């Protein structure tokens, strides 16, 4: 499994309240949630994001609330993968459960810039910044996690 796209870059401690503000949690519609993704930290994100794009951030991405609406909004906005130095633990679990690929890689998180074209190979964990020519090695997911993600999430995986 591979992903490739343009990077949207953020800093430390991107919390679930800025990923999807609670004022929009009166719906569970994926499409509606995607329309407000990142709006309190990056008002232009929903205008700029294209299918397949990649989100990169530094430490503790997804901290705060347990709302699964956060990875749902990111996935439904078209993002194909999130790379961060570290993830908050509930977000990490939720992302896998809904089939949003995520990778922890501190070097990639620090060196990749906004707007770079980046490709990710989930089988090997190799992240390539096509714009700068740099490559980074992340720990790939074990096969059972990759299967959950490629099946589209935990429930689809266990009921297929």
């Amino acid at each position, binding site marked *: 499994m591979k992903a490739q796209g343009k990077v949207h870059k953020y800093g430390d401690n991107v919390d679930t309240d800025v990923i999807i503000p609670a004022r929009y*949690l009166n719906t569970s519609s994926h499409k509606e949630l995607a329309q407000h993704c990142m709006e309190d930290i990056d008002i232009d994100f929903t205008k700029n994001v294209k299918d397949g794009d990649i989100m990169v951030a530094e430490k503790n991405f997804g901290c705060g609330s347990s709302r699964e609406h956060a990875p749902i909004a990111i996935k439904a906005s078209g993002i194909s993968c999130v790379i961060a130095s570290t993830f908050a633990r509930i977000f990490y679990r939720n992302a896998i459960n809904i089939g949003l690929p995520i990778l922890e890689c501190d070097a990639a998180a620090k060196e990749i810039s906004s707007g770079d074209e980046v490709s990710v190979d989930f089988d090997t964990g190799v992240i390539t910044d096509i714009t700068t020519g740099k490559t980074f090695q992340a720990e790939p997911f074990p096969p059972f996690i990759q299967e959950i993600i490629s099946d589209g999430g935990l*429930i689809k995986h266990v009921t297929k």
Partner: protein
Amino acid sequence: MGMTMSQKILAAHAGLETVKAGQLIEAKLDMVLGNDITSPVAINVFNDGKASSVFDNTKIAMVMDHFTPNKDIKAAEQCKQVRSFADKYDIKNFFDVGQMGIEHALLPEKGLVGPGTLCIGADSHTCTYGALGAFSTGVGSTDMAAGMISGKTWFKVPSAIKFVLINKPAKYISGKDIILHIIGMIGVDGALYRSMEFFGDGIKYLNIDDRLCIANMAIEAGAKNGIFPVDDITREYIKDRFKGEPVEYTADEDAEYDETYTIDLSTLRPTVSFPHLPENARTVDEIGQTEVKIDQCVIGSCTNGRISDLRAAADILRGQKVAKGVRCIIIPATQSVYLQAMHEGLFDIFIEAGAVVSTPTCGPCLGGHMGILAQGERAISTTNRNFVGRMGHVESEVYLASPAVAAASAVTGYITDPAKIGSN
């Protein structure tokens, strides 16, 4: 190698003699929790998975607390969806308006969690019940759905950090000041993926509400759970309350801890977390008398909406007036707290001071309703998060503090040391 308190509870529920940090285990759940925001997503997942039954209708709790009483049509539809599900599957612990309270105040009060319980909840502050010696942690809606179906979930066994609390805290130092101090010290990812385990002779000076407040905010340091040992204060609290069989776990003497911090409670000062992270902690002594002007004061939430929190606020507000230009909103966390506060005459104090008293709701804590901030406004709040836009406009600010600090600030209109208002 010995086990921590958290590891012992996980081992017992996985049917294993021992577990060690990093091990992946499958464990049986005593309680699965959701609210009016996370349950609808879990119900969709439950239905997508073509599930037709729940594992145990007495071990699932659904609490309509976030956007209730329904703040708008969409919120009403979400509650309706959960109500129908609870009805269809005969969920025994479904709490609607009239019975509900803020989930993390309600579950301990109703005796649905207690010493030795293993609980997951689709709400990050589920870690609160560690105050009673339970292992409880927040998960997402898919994990909630899978838990409702199977009664089990998988965990990576966490390592732990030890916090030794020593000596007696001074007047006006509450659980909130202790946890804000700790988060200020270790940062918002200081306990990422790990347990925070509390020990020491200082614990005996902390009532259950203080402990619930401390465990509640373990997630704000990134922790998987926070946990206290069970003592006489816990036993007294769960007596005639806890519906399960309490099991008390103590850490082994040779249990391994990644780090140990000793905190002398007698040296702590009232502490406030500045925007926009709970780790931005400062003591009141580091804040100028007219440095932070406030527009709103919120006293409530799963962190600080319990009876001792309301008493602490009332002690400050008695005979005082809320400053002109400040809206002071007080939200008892549950119906039972509401009734008790009313009987104790606390509402007279609040209302005479110019505060409003709301029905239980999470409301303003997450910018839902009942006290949203406008552009440029500032709130002092006893809630748990001060992220960008948390209580309203993206350019508003939230300062986190104890009920005593919040109430004192409501009186002066600026963030204030409670000792300057209260009777010493």
